[in-house]
């Protein structure tokens, strides 16, 4: 499947990944916090639904937390990471 550009992705694309990963919001927040996320659970939820724009770092941590879950389920990092100058 061709990857969608950022503009093409639905605003709640991150929440769709969360649902696919079978994680509740609170479980995802714990995982996100565990690997260095700094925002609280309400803010994280707003990021997932596209109500708030996460910082590049926050976006990276959310992608990492989701991807770790997908790896546990046998996937291979399907969530795109933040578009940084890495």
């Amino acid at each position, binding site marked *: 499947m061709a990857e969608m550009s950022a503009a093409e992705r639905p605003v709640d694309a991150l929440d769709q990944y969360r*649902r696919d990963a079978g994680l*509740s*919001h*609170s*479980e995802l*927040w*714990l995982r996100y*916090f*565990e*690997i*260095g996320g*700094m925002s*609280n*659970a*309400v*803010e994280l*939820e*707003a990021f997932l*639904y596209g*109500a*708030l724009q996460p910082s*590049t*770092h926050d976006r*990276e*941590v959310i*992608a*990492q937390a989701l*991807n*770790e879950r997908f*790896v546990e389920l046998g996937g291979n*990092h399907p969530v795109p*990471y933040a578009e*940084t100058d*890495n």
Partner: protein
Amino acid sequence: MSSSGLSEKRAGPSAFDEPLGGFGVTVGFVNASAVLSVRGSMDHLSSCELGAIWDAVVERHLSVVLDLTQLTFISSLGLQVVATRALQLKASGGTLIIRSPSSAVIRMLELRGVAEVAHLERTDPSPSHLGAEQTSERDGAIVDVEPHHMSRYLGMTTGIPADNDVVDGALRLVVALARATVAGADGVSVSLRRYGQLGTVAASDQTISDMDASQYATGEGPCVDASVKGRWFHAESLETETRWPAFTPRAQALGISAILSTPLLAADLPVGALNIYSRTAMAFVCEAQVLASVFATEASSILTAAGVAVTNEQLSLRLGEALRLRRLIAQAEGVIMEREGVGADRAYGMLCDLSRRSSLPFHQHAADVTASTQRLRTASDPEPTEHHDG
């Protein structure tokens, strides 16, 4: 409720006894109160951590004790985190005791209006305790956390189904079934506490939703009492009801005459209520009460199965482990920053890259990076030589 596993860990080395900056939080539970004991230095990073832990705990406990006995320093961001959370807790109907704040901390909290919403429990302050706190702004870059920051976010997320969509769907079904089968029911709703605030996750119509909202706004009413106290409340006739003076007239204005609120329990903790409203006084006879109880039990099973309320011990252990892993990752970031001459975000990205190329969890790479410095240090240390005098 007994003390949590983390409290028990205090005796020996634990996830909370971190050497970095000496900051630690112990989460304990005494009766219905969550006790957050903070120790060491609360700078920028640790303030955010305390905020996050606070939010996770307050989701289930509206009675909080913040013990500052072992606090040695608190930055202005730390004060802001405490102040913002204190005001939010008060707005949600919760109570806060701040134990052993120094006089400097008391002054700063008073300036932020916290003294009016929290009980400041002073113990005999030792001079050393007074000396270390709030004498300077140690973190040069204070993160902008405005007082209205959180309420703005909460406003944005209103109406978004929080947490598990499947759970919400099941609760909507319970509402529809109760509405159809409980004799005298003109409207039904389910209130659930999420992020420390009660909200309506399912309602049979807008009037019922408004009815719940009036209770959250006034902080009183059968739905609030059932959700917080875990007991059922029955207002047979609002004409003669005296328990909720602020809420009752609002309900009557919306045409409601009787209310039956039954608590929802997840893992034996009250997390919300099933509310049944009627336009007819004395509508809910014995049979209706039994049916309400059956539906509430079903909804409670759904919430328990979904892990809406993890046990205190589980929550404490998860938060403790999360703090330990965060510190490990921060250490690894520091090592990469030093080694590669890059900034924090880039260092984090490099850890992500490592994780992407393997199937190992992120913290495993962080542990490897940190361990590599230990190996280097060991290798570069001169071998201890033995001296023999003879």
